[in-house]
């Protein structure tokens, strides 16, 4: 009996030692906003994985409380392999060179080799449709980079270093590592270490509202990567843009932003969006990202500005038909009221009053009947916002509003989260 009790005691001790030394899960959640370029990046200057651009670009970061990529990354000695869940579906990390690349880049900078060798689980969700020109790659890779860096204790060893890693995931992702007005510098080096993103003005400098009009949430025909390389090869106008137009526009637009000059900011923004789409049209075969609804939005904004006597609304389009329309808060209610009328949108609660006279004046300048309901499929309302929000769940350090997408007990996506998030994206 004594031997049996002693054996049981030994077993109990062994069991409790195992549970006491069960490998811990260290996990971090990051939320980032997409960014929308106001002077566009289009074209890589290198063929390899560095994602170096032909020209510099600048963007405004969107407020990540409204539209975001949210990513939880976890590492543990108990994890058997790197795993990835994107918008509820498990994907193979090895299938994505970009994601594997970001992981490798951060790991090689991790000072603790034991930690660097551990496997990582990644759970990520976008609150808006993927691959429809709403900068989903940018937000996602920015979140991934910041999250894995935080997880592995990696920081900038020189200003902007982490932005170069995000850039390698997806070029414009580098711009989502800061809030406000952000510049992605061209850089001169072949290794891309100086092709970094820096904040030119914080989000607090000039509140700018954004009205996003989704003209078609379907997957786009031409991916950005192949499209931009087609443009480099075939557009006779592209080299001129890169050499003569972009830098001057970045300079003038940055100045306008710092001076809070919406008239200038708006005009350059619209011109650069149109020039980007002009380059796409000048490619062979031509790339059409804007559709008929997009064009109606352009015409409507021109009409609104004409009646206002100055630029109060400014559109920009990325590689897709969706419009982001900027306005200053004092004009937003009026702009949104006119959009509601002429684009047949449901009320959002943020529309202001607009007189019958003004509607008549805009109608005359616009020259078209209001669009049929549903032509603009969805609207998102947001504003210029901050850089990434970070929470280290394990240490408790960071923004405590963030919820983990991963269950640390299982190392797998948290069940309840897949039910909560209102906008799971469709592939």
């Amino acid at each position: 009996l004594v031997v049996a009790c002693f054996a049981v005691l030994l077993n109990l001790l062994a069991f409790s030692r195992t549970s006491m030394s069960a490998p811990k899960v260290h996990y971090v959640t990051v939320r980032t906003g997409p960014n929308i370029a106001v002077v566009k990046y289009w074209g890589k200057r290198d063929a390899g994985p560095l994602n170096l651009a032909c020209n510099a670009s600048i963007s405004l970061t969107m407020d990540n409380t409204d539209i975001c990529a949210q990513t939880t990354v976890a590492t543990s000695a108990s994890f058997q392999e790197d795993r990835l869940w994107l918008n509820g579906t498990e994907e193979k990390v090895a299938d994505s060179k970009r994601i594997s690349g970001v992981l490798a880049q951060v790991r090689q900078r991790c000072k603790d080799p034991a930690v660097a060798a551990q496997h990582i689980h990644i759970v990520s969700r976008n609150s808006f449709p993927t691959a429809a020109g709403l900068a989903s790659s940018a937000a996602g890779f920015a979140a991934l980079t910041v999250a894995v860096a935080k997880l592995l204790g990696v920081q900038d060893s020189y200003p902007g270093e982490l932005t170069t890693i995000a850039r390698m995931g997806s070029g414009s992702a580098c711009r989502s590592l800061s809030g406000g007005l952000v510049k992605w510098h061209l850089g001169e080096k072949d290794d891309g270490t100086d092709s970094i993103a820096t904040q030119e003005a914080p989000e607090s400098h000039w509140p700018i509202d954004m009205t996003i009009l989704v003209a078609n949430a379907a997957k786009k025909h031409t991916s950005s990567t192949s499209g931009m390389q087609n443009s480099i090869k075939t557009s006779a106008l592209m080299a001129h843009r890169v050499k003569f137009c972009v830098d001057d526009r970045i300079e003038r637009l940055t100045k306008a932003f710092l001076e809070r000059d919406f008239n200038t900011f708006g005009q350059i923004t619209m011109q650069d969006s149109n020039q980007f789409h002009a380059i796409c049209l000048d490619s062979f075969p031509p790339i059409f990202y804007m559709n008929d609804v997009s064009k109606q939005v352009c015409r409507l904004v021109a009409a609104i500005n004409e009646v206002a006597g100055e630029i109060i609304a400014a559109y920009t389009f990325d590689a897709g038909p969706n419009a982001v329309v900027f306005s200053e808060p004092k004009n937003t209610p009026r702009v949104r009221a006119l959009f509601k009328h002429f684009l047949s949108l449901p009320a959002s609660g943020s529309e202001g009053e607009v007189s019958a006279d003004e509607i008549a004046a805009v109608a005359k300048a616009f020259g078209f009947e209001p669009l049929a309901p549903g032509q603009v499929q969805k609207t998102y309302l947001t504003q210029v916002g901050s850089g990434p929000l970070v929470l280290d769940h394990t240490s408790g350090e960071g923004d405590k509003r963030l919820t983990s997408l991963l269950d640390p007990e299982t190392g797998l996506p948290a069940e309840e989260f897949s039910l909560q998030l209102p906008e799971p994206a469709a592939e």
Partner: protein
Amino acid sequence: EIHMATVSAPTNIACIKYWGKASIPLNTPINSSLSVTLDQDDLRAVTTASASLGFQSDRLWLNGIEEEGASTSKRFRACVDRMLELAGDKIDDKSGSVLVAKSEWKEMRVHISSYNTFPTAAGLASSAAGYAALVYALAKLFCAKESYKGQFTAIARQGSGSACRSLYGGFVAWRMGSNPAIDGSDSIAQQVADENHWPQIRAVILVVSDSKKDTSSTAGMSTSVQTSELLKHRAHNVVPKRMADIEKAIAEKDFDAFGRITMMDSNQFHATCLDTYPPIFYMNHVSKLIVRMVHVYNDWAGGTIRAAYTFDAGPNAVLYTLDQYQTELCALMLHYFPSTDHTNYINNNDMAAQARDYQLDEGLIQAVDNIGIIPQTGDVKNIYCTKAGPGPQTLGMEHANIDIHTGFNTYKPH
């Protein structure tokens, strides 16, 4: 006595586009351009120009309707006054006596009546045909002579820029001139090759439905010149080489090169319109479907170019092709843009029948279906099948639009 001359003149469709004036008063361009003159059997302007000491004032009828204020319109005046300066003696064929001395013409007023055999609303460059017909008719009426080759085209140019290219048949260049901002005398059209040089060339024109009138060319190109940075680069650096390349392609009857350059130049023109502030959108959804279909068609054919699209300042598509592919191309368009009313949908009854009977390759239809295009009636209003053709022609008295006794318009649209 009423003196009269009746002519017909063609329209033309540019392969290298004119967009932007170097001088507005002179109507000279910032770059050269090149077009194909289309066959007058299918599309033409018919103009009678008449002059008489008995006429009270200059009068103009277009498609049967009198144009108020025509006599003072800058374009009309430019054509009439410049042609008067080149007027010659009208000599009796038989007796050799002078019926009208050259100095007498300017004492007379003119009555002009012109109509197009294709609707103005079709956006098929009716101005070009119209002003070419006007200048040619006046040349015949006034027995005018050029003091240098191309001088008549310089005058037509002042009526409407691209009209200068309609004064010759076949493949025609409009040379921008050595100093277009200041001097328009050498901003003239020149025939690159006549209509018999490359007899296999065909055109299939799709008149696309559109809900709104387009931005006028004159206003549009002015805004482009003022605001598009890419347009300057196009004019200085891109067009000169394209002109040389396309002329070489025409000389060598290289449809692959001809087609590629034509499509790229159409796209670049529309790109500069988009780069304008505010932007100009001439192509619509249907135009873009046609572009994508042509790329699929050429890819399906193994990467050689069977069809080449080009779009002017409007949504209509002109598809250049070779005679051996014209029926197939027409059948393809008919498949995806069927008509609700079969009569008059295609201008040429023989082509219409052939296109309807043509068996399109299943692989081709699959390929177009795969990019998401579905047959849709109403997208295309009608189709013209045509080819390259000659310059303006003199017509007999039986075609006159003006009554020889009264001097009034006799044309009524039907």
